[in-house]
C-alpha cells in the first residue's frame, strides 16, 4: 500500500513535468495573527500573506502557501521543501548566516512585555516563543525564560500564572491586550531585530532580486502603507 502510494505520487509528479517551473512555494507558521494565521475558512491569512501575494503578482510568480511548524521552518527552507518564508520573521544576524532576507516589509518594530500587573521584567519569569529574537532577549536580560512552541501558548502561560509576563512583537500583542481586561503592557518597549523580511535560500539570488524589486515598488506606490494600515491600524506607515 505504502509503496503503491509512493509509486503513484512519483508517477503524478513526473507527469506534471511539462508545466511551468516558476511556482514559488512559501512557508508560513499560521499561528501569529495578525502577521499570519489560519482564518475560519481554513485559509492562510494576514499581513505576511497579503504582502507576499502582492509580491508574487508584481514579480509574475505563481505562489503557493505551505504551513510549517516554527521550529523547523528554516531547516525545511534550506532542504528545499519550499522556496521562501513569509512568517513575520525578523531579520537578525544569526538567521542571516543560514538564510538570506529580502529588504524589510515591516519596520523594525518594538517588542513589548505584557502581564497581569506591573513587575520588574528583568527578574521575573518571562514567557516567549522558542527560537525567536524575543526569547534571546529575555535570556540575556537576566529574567527567567520559559519557552513555548507557539505564540498563543506563551500568552496563555501568563493568563494561567505560569509566567509573570510575555515578550512578543507589539503588533501581535496589541489586539490581545486590548481585548483582555486583565492584561496590561509592562515597562518600556524594546527594539529588537532589523524589521521583518522574506527569508530565502542563500543560493536563490535570482528570486531575491525579483522579490526585492517588487517590495521596493510596493513601498513606492503606497501599496505597502495600505496593507500596513489594514492589518496594523494606527501604525506609522513611513519606512
Amino acid at each position, binding site marked *: 500500500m505504502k509503496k503503491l502510494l509512493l509509486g503513484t505520487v512519483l508517477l503524478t*509528479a513526473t507527469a506534471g513535468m511539462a508545466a511551468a517551473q516558476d511556482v514559488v512555494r512559501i512557508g508560513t507558521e499560521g499561528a501569529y495573527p495578525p502577521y499570519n494565521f489560519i482564518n475560519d475558512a*481554513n485559509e492562510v491569512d494576514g499581513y505576511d500573506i497579503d504582502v507576499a501575494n502582492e509580491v508574487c503578482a508584481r514579480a509574475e510568480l505563481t505562489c503557493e502557501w505551505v504551513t510549517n511548524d516554527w521550529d523547523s521552518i528554516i531547516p525545511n527552507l534550506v532542504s528545499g521543501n519550499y522556496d521562501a518564508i513569509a512568517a513575520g520573521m525578523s531579520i537578525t544576524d544569526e538567521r542571516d548566516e543560514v538564510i538570506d532576507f529580502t529588504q524589510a516589509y515591516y519596520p523594525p518594530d518594538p517588542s513589548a512585555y505584557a502581564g497581569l500587573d506591573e513587575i520588574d521584567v528583568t527578574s521575573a519569569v518571562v514567557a516567549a516563543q522558542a527560537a525567536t529574537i524575543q526569547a534571546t532577549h529575555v535570556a540575556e536580560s537576566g529574567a527567567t525564560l520559559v519557552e513555548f512552541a507557539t505564540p498563543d501558548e506563551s500568552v496563555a502561560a501568563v493568563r494561567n500564572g505560569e509566567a509573570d509576563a510575555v515578550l512578543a512583537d507589539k503588533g501581535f500583542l496589541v489586539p490581545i491586550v486590548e481585548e483582555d481586561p486583565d492584561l496590561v503592557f509592562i515597562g518600556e518597549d524594546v527594539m529588537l531585530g532589523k524589521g521583518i523580511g522574506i527569508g530565502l535560500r542563500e*543560493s536563490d539570488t535570482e528570486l531575491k532580486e525579483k522579490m526585492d524589486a517588487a517590495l521596493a515598488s510596493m513601498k513606492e506606490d503606497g501599496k505597502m502603507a495600505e496593507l500596513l494600515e489594514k492589518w496594523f491600524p494606527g501604525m506609522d506607515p513611513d519606512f
Partner: protein
Amino acid sequence: MFEFCTAPSALDDLRWMACYLTTGKQIAFYWSFGTVLLLLAVTAPAALAFGFLGALASRSRVAPLRWLGTAYTSMVRGIPDIIFFLFVPIALDQGLEWLRHKAKCPDWDQPVRQGSDFLVCAEAKLPLNTAPQWVHESYGFALAVLAFAVVFGAFAANVLSGAMRAVPRAQIETAEAYGMSHSQAVWRILVPQMWIYALPGLSNLWQILVKATPLLFLLGVQDIVYWARELGGSKTSTFAYPHPDWRLWYFLGLLVFYLALTSLSERVFARLSHRLSLGQATAAGEKHRKAAA
C-alpha cells in the same frame, strides 16, 4: 455553513455555536480524525510486515542477512523516535531527489550542497513545485507512514523474534522428525503458532502507535492534536469567531477519542487472543480444551 452565518457577531449563543462548529477550520479538524485513522490503518500492517521481515532476517542462517536484521532492530530501537522521525523523511526525500537529479539533469554544474542549502534542479524536485497541493500532502503522508513503519517495525521485529523463540522446541523437532525441511518447519509449524506469544507485545505496540500520531506534525501532516491546539488557542477579533482559551475542551474531546479507540482495540485484542489460543499448548489453550470437553 448555515445561511444565517454571514454576520457571526450578531448571532445568539446557540446559532453562534452552530456556525462556529461548521467553519472550514472545524471541518478540517473533523477530517483530521480520518487522517489519523487512515495512518493507523496503513501503518499497522506495514510495520508488521517490516517486523516480520526483520524477525526472519535476524533468525536467518545466512550471516549477512542475520547481521542486517540485528542491526536494524538494535539501531532503530536504540535511537530516540523523534530523531528517526526527523531523519528518515528528510534523508529519504533528499536521497530520492538526488537520484532523480542525477538521472534528469546530467549537465547541471553546480554542487548539490551549497553551505546548508540542498539544491537540485527543478525537474528533480519531489514532488515538483508545480504539482497540486494534494500531491504534496500525499507525499508527506507517505513519508510519514514509512517513518512510522520503520520505527515500529523494529519493535515488532523484536516482539516477533521473541515469539518465534517461545514456540516449544519440541514442535520443531517433531516437524523435522516427519521429514519437513527447515523452511517447511518454519512456515507450517513455527509461524502459525508464534502469534499467540507475540500478541501481548504487539497489542502494546499498537497502543503506543495510536498515541504516537501527534509526531505527524513534525512531518508537516496536520493531525488532531495540531488542530486541537490551533483551534483551542484564544482568538482575538481578528478572527470571525473570537473566543477565550478553549484548549481544555478540545483536549477533553481528544481524551474521549483516544480512550474510545484504545478500549475498542483492547476488546479486539481480547477476542483475537481467544481465537489464537485455541488448540495451543499454552495455559489458555488448555483451558479452552477443558471447557469444550
